[in-house]
């Protein structure tokens, strides 16, 4: 799908779950694909952190620099973007160029 989007001339970033601890909704290797306008396909969680990842992904499409995001209950922003299931995940976000 990422490839199809590229063929359409869209800027594309891929977010990948690279590590999980405890109970996490999507396993390592799960992908969320995002374009420069924030359209997305796939998932990295049950929907709890997608919004944050999409914002990071659109920034990544502009800057071109990969980054790692972490989400979990120990996070100080837990109330905002925590995982209700109590797990922790790390997400790698990269632009396809």
């Amino acid at each position, binding site marked *: 799908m*990422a*490839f199809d989007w*590229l063929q359409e001339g869209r800027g594309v970033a*891929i977010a*990948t779950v*690279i*590590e999980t601890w405890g109970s996490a909704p999507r*396993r*390592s*290797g799960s992908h969320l694909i995002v374009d420069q306008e924030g359209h997305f396909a796939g998932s990295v969680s049950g929907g709890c952190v997608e919004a944050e990842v999409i914002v990071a992904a659109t920034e990544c499409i502009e800057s071109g*620099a*990969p980054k*790692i995001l972490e989400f979990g209950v120990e996070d100080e922003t837990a109330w905002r973007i925590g995982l209700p299931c109590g797990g922790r995940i790390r997400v*790698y976000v*990269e*632009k*396809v*160029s």
Partner: protein
Amino acid sequence: MRRELLAAMKFETDARRASVLVTDVADGAQFLLLASSEPKNSVEVAARQALLDGESRMALVEGREYFFTVAWPAPRLVIVGASHVSQALAALSVTAGFDVAIVDPRKAFASERRFPGVNLVAQWPQDAFKQAPLDPFCAVALLAHVPSIDDPALLEALDAGCFYIGALGSKKTRDARMKRLAAAGRQSEADRIHAPIGLDIGARTPAEIAVAILAEIVSVMRRGGARRR
């Protein structure tokens, strides 16, 4: 990720071969390791193991963090026999992400009207598999309930090493099939066949039987069917 790497992964999966993308998460450096390539260093050895396990994962190799993105070809489900159960199984399996094909030489059964939008092959299995060969990433569900259609497909599925082979039929039908297999000198392969087909969930209708079959296929694919029955 470079666009060429994504294209190369797609090329491999389209050719029904596995590959693994190796990412150094600290600096973003990446390369693709093919199923056919010999690992040349400790990172490639770890990546190859992930590929064989079919599991994307993180690894710490010589103090650096790598992520291995394993790309397997889409699992393919070949349904032999265009029956009522096949109609439900085709629809469910497409939703579950399988690349589905129906094989049945009886054109009255394998009709576009009965299977809208499904890849239909109105040929004998042995002819159908010449054009689209079976491989280890295939599951085969034998649902024709007619030995002249099911049996040739069964032998080809065994030869190709398909990860799942299931055959519809009562215990009596299964025993008759075993006798034919023994007559062909292939009795030792009998335990690779899931029969009666599907997890025992008390399914009654064709759609419920399809759920039982799909659940069994997923269970074999994801954990070797360890908890089956």
